[in-house]
């Protein structure tokens, strides 16, 4: 009845207007039923906001929902009794709880807690099992309900999520995925499944499916100037280099270092700046700061980054092995349009700046 549809994944650099392109592509679909999904509620809100800004209100043929809502409401609940026996058992999501380690997978309590809420780690696994148990009814239902599914921040999907992606890729639904493997700051779940395809490994996963899923690369940034792009590219040397497009100069452009003692002077001179920190325990010189993970998807003119010890070490000697979470550093730097400044205990000697040697317009870590 249904033909297999084209699928596309767009692997794109920070600032290449990923979410924007999803919103535009979704709005361009005039006949059909469109779902836009993404993991974080913050990003869902952004998507809805952008659509409202463009066309006033969410058009009736477009719906926006979270990845877990899609998995639970549209995949697990409808045919749950194929695994739960009784209808209407599944109540929702148990995001924090964990199943008892000794529960065998054959037991429904592997997936559901005592209140019928699904353990976060088992949701996509359940969907895959359910689709098997119903001989594909789960996917057939999605095919009836949606003609197009758009997935933003696809790099957040891990483990059995990828098996669900495989089901969607081979369905008649037109699937468009957008993401940046370098910005893998969240995971929908933790589990050993598909571990090697997490983060930058996701690019390989798509590469293995290039026959049924067109891969598009977007190696440009409308957001950050070239100096910032180069600094960010250096974090992931295996990826293609990013070109900055049309970012104006302001007189204070690039990547800088700021001594801890002169933070307030820097802010006074170049403010307003957005302070970014690793987590709530980080020292931020009494500035109100935002967690790097939360900042993903946002754009700021200038950012002031309070780096972790490994980040500092990387900045000092360019040792990639030291970076425990390169994605955080990548996300932090690429939030900025004009300037990204690192707060350092004391100035790094100029010799170490070679780390940032790039093409032509060489980025430099500059004294403030």
């Amino acid at each position, binding site marked *: 009845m249904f033909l297999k549809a084209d699928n596309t994944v767009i692997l794109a650099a920070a600032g290449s207007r990923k979410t924007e392109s999803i919103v535009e592509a979704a709005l361009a679909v005039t006949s059909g039923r469109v779902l836009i999904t993404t993991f974080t509620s913050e990003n869902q809100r952004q998507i809805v906001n952008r659509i409202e800004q463009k066309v006033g209100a969410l058009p009736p043929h477009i719906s926006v929902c979270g990845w877990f809502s899609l998995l639970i409401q549209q995949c697990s*609940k409808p045919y749950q009794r194929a695994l739960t026996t009784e*209808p*209407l058992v599944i109540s929702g999501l148990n995001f924090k709880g964990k199943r008892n380690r000794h529960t065998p997978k054959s037991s429904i309590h592997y997936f559901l807690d005592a209140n019928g809420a699904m353990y976060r780690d088992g949701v996509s696994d359940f969907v895959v099992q359910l689709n098997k148990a119903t001989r594909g009814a789960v996917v057939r239902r999605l095919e*009836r309900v949606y003609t197009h599914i758009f997935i933003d921040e696809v790099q957040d999907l891990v483990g059995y999520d990828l098996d669900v992606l495989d089901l969607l890729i081979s369905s008649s639904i037109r699937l468009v995925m957008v993401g940046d493997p370098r910005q893998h700051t969240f995971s929908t779940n933790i589990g050993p499944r598909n571990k090697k395809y997490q983060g930058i490994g996701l690019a390989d996963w798509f590469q293995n499916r290039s026959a049924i899923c067109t891969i598009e690369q977007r190696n440009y940034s409308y957001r950050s100037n070239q100096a910032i792009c180069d600094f960010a590219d250096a974090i992931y040397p295996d990826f293609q280099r990013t070109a900055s497009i049309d970012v104006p100069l302001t007189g204070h452009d690039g990547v800088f270092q700021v001594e801890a003692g002169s933070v307030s002077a820097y802010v006074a001179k170049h403010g307003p700046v957005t302070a970014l920190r690793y987590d709530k325990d980080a020292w931020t010189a009494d500035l109100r700061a935002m967690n790097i993970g939360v900042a993903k998807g946002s754009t700021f003119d200038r950012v002031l980054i309070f780096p972790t010890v490994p980040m500092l070490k990387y900045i000092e000697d360019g040792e990639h092995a030291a970076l425990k979470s390169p994605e955080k550093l990548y996300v932090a730097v690429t939030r900025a349009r004009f300037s990204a400044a690192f707060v350092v205990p004391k100035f790094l000697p100029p010799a170490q700046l070679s780390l940032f040697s790039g093409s032509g317009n060489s980025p430099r870590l500059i004294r403030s």
Partner: protein
Amino acid sequence: MIRKVCIRNYRRFRKFDIELQPGINVLVGCNGSGKSTLIEAIDLALTGRVHGRFLAQGVSPYLINLEATRDYFQQLRESGASNPQPPKMIIDVFLDDEDAEILRGTNNLDNEDACGVRIQAQLSGEFHTEYQNFLKSPGSTVLAPTEYYNVEWLGFSGNPVNARSVPTSTTVIDPTMIRLQAGVDYHLQQILTRCLDPKERVELSRQYRGVREEFSERESVKAINKRLSDEDGTLTDRKLSLAIDISQRYAWESGLAAHLDDLPLHLAGQGDQNALKTLLAIGQRADGAEIVLIEEPENHLSFSYLRKLIKSIEDRCASKQLIVATHSTFVLNKLGLQSLLLLSENGATRIVDLPPDTVDYFKKLSGFDTLRLVLSKGAILVEGPSDELVVQRGYLDAKGRLPIDDGIDVISVGLSHKRFLELAIRLKRRVWVVTDNDGKTVQEKEVQFAEYLLHDCVSLHTGKDPKFNTLEPQIVEVNSVATLNEVLGTSCGSKEELCKVMHDDKTAAALAIFTSEKSIKMPEYIQDVFKG
């Protein structure tokens, strides 16, 4: 459209399943067979409301099947330990509709992969403690403990639905619906709201607001408001004034009254009101899947008015699914016997494969009382009113009561025996066909009815002697001249003369036989009817 409805423990339905067809469905059944309850249940599942109120706001214990409730209390009192569950009410409505795919799943009573909506009410986990206390001393309660219930309105997908996410629009037209207030009453309001498109509604709202603003700008109104605000300080420091209330969402709905020939609708006759509501409802714009539920459209309507109304229903409902409950044979015949659904306690009987020419026949000759056949336990089909009277008297003499007391109806069908038989064999209704032999032998008559006589439920009764071609000579043959003279009040000298008198005024003769104190002997073929 609605394909199927499954009900558990709702009102009179403990377990009730019914399949509906696209287009017109005519529900018939005796009083108390659940026609209105079915309409109410469908409306409840599709709108979340019962009697204009959201079920979620409170479940009346009377909505829960009383028999199931009784069983629950019996179990509770007999075996306190086994912890019986109070009855769970479920209404599942299966929909066939492209827009309903989001409601697809197997969370329904039949474990079927289908689109649909469920409303259910059951004991809530939230009230566990309160319910346990209730169990300790249920006292003499006989009603379901619905104060501990919660209501869920769900798609078969297992996800909650709301009025906007149910893709079908439902309209119930109930002539007995009480008017809540003057003006556009709630019931009419709903119908009107669906009848008007959103632009028209906004325009009405805007114009109404304009009138209100004009009103307060009039000199005399301003003067009054000025005087009111000048009476300072007695009650409040704030300014008091009078204006037309437009605070409600659609102010015009309560402020505007529907008029029929310039007469406010609520002052028009019941018949006009109902007809108008029905016409408004079925005349809605044709977007979306629409379902119109009509309760007894014949109420308060004269025959000619009913004809017009049924005509409009037929003309306008081509794209809609129509579910009509009726006690009127006319409505049934006109809307078509192929749409008939006979309700009984456990479900519904539908007639399948009724020949189209028979359906058309009753549409054209809609005076025939098909509904009597449908609702009876059995029927004696006779040719005319005189046969009807004689057969009834014979039954009374043989059994000591009239056939209707046994649920058996005697129906005059003229020469339409075969049309009624088409219906009867499909309903598996016991039917005795009493017919004149018209000068033919019994064998010849049997050939004429051969295809129906194959069915056990049909038997043929006709005079054995071809010489006596109708009922009258058959009666004359088996009774003495004296007996018949006494019963008929005549003084005929011969059987020939009696035959002529009876033949000349069949009905008068039959009436005399029916009312006479003295019984006559019935011809053998009629007596056979009473033996079965």
